[in-house]
């Protein structure tokens, strides 16, 4: 089953993640985004960084999650390829996420750099739940990243 993909946009790049749970879809969305920047296969998950973020709704939480990852990658000069979200929960009408991002220091010779992602945007932003049948719920998350 397809886990993540890029989709077309006139000037930038669309990223989409799928998952059986909302957490998995968010993780795959992050893979799709870092796949815009480097060849993910070349990245080894040597180190991990804890990520926490929150937002007023799930769509904005997705953008927060992606942008938090970009900021951490930028600060540490890292590239991430592997993600684990412990949970996404709603408390007092705020959505909170806590998770891990794994990767290593960016090495242009090793990682086959493509383009830098400036930010995840609110453009074509979607978090959807699709119930194909009672046994196959699927979450789809997507947004456009500015490059």
């Amino acid at each position, binding site marked *: 089953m397809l886990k993540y993909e890029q989709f077309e946009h006139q000037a930038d790049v669309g990223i989409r993640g799928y998952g059986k749970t909302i957490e998995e879809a968010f993780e795959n969305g992050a893979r799709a985004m870092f796949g815009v920047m480097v060849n993910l296969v070349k990245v080894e998950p040597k180190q991990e960084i804890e990520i926490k973020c929150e937002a007023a709704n799930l769509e904005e939480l997705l953008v927060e999650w992606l942008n938090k990852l970009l900021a951490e990658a930028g*600060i540490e000069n890292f590239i991430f390829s592997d993600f684990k979200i412990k949970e996404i929960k709603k408390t007092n009408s705020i959505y909170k996420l806590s998770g891990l991002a794994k990767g290593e220091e960016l090495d*242009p010779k090793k990682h086959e*750099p493509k*383009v830098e992602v*400036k930010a995840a945007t*609110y453009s074509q932003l979607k978090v959807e739940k699709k119930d194909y049948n009672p046994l196959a719920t699927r979450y789809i998350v997507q947004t456009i990243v500015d490059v």
Partner: protein
Amino acid sequence: MDIKSLKKISDYQWEIPKTGEMNVPGRIFGDEKLVKEMDEKVREQVTNVACLPGILKASLAMPDGHWGYGFSIGGVAAMEPEKGVISIGGIGFDSGCGVRTLKTNLTLNEVKPKIKKLVDLLFQTVPCGLGSRGKIILSPGEADELFKEGAKWVIKRGYGTEDDLKYIEDGGSLEGAEPEYVSETAKRREKRQVGTLGSGNHYEEIQCIDEIYDEETAKRFGLFKNQILISIHCGSRALGHQIGTDYLKILAETSRKYGIKIRNRELVCAPINSLEGKRYAAANLCALNYSYANRQVITHLTRECFKKIFPKAEVKTFWDLTHNSARWEKHKIDGELKKVLVHRKGATRAFGPGREEIPEEYREIGQPILVGGTMGTYSFILKGTDFGMKVAFGSACHGAGRAMSRTQAKKRWQGKELAQQLEARGIYSRTASWGGFAEEAPGAYKDVVEVIEAVHNANLATKVVRMRPLGVIKG
């Protein structure tokens, strides 16, 4: 775009009539062909911007308009200070992104035989591509000073001369930048990035003037046929990206808090007069100043490269402008000169003759405008007009504008092959990423010549000279 739904004002101006929630009409500049080829999304975005509170006269799109976030690329909107809003959709995530063009005393015949050596040296010297780092390491205190003073600060440190400042918009240093409204994350992300090109559509190009349209103005601008120019296209790097990211979240909250009716989440904004609006504006000025400093340092590095290969070379700043910004400007509104906040997203300032912002020696001519093409096509220098001041708050197009997605471009072109094709046409290139290079294929863009003709014929700005590329470095 369905042209029948637009009201034709002239051969180069098309109106989206004011209906429903629109506070002003929309106005799209371009000839019939360009407007027809624009995505329907451009109309939707121009209309959405026309609904923002406090927008003045009209919501505009330049002839290179294409689908953006919130505003269309090529979108311009002026806001009234009391009721208006500042929107991230009108600035984007790379505030201050722009072009610096340098002029030299060198000619095509002198540079052509050494172009490879020159481009190779520039590629080694100017950091470019994903995660590239420069040599300047700023302490927290120094970073704050740089945010406040922009290009002025790096010049004090030896990266250029006072003379450069005269030819940078805003003198390379905008007042009102407040580092305290820039997050710690943004400051930490800005690590050794002053003087780096970045990636995507950013580039540095060696060009030669191959056509002069306006002899008189070219002479006054110090431009001549076969002269070597250098153009640098880049922005405010991770600092600007993070300021945009931080305020995206803040403005999403303020849009709800102040109950601002926005037709699309991408247009999140804050009243100009609110605390949040003022903070965003002040943080945004830090990004603008940073972009001026960034292009200043690259200018200095470029000069050093030229001096190594051409010891007698004189490399002077011709002009530096930003095409992603929100700045306070004075414009005539209902016959009265008023201070308004002008958002330009993928659009340049194009002030006409007489404006005090233009350095004295060019003031009676109009502002120089730099329009970058693609790595395989022409770039242009134009000058601002009185007419542009009246109909477009003194604005013009910023480039060719993309016509094809990055994914499609990558399917159609191979980076290495493309570089060979360009070389066969006399354009030598170096890149940090072959994939990124293919995405920037000249064929993925609109025809810059058509866009420039439309700008010229619409009288938003008029053509002065055309440049063709000889060498290019891409991030």
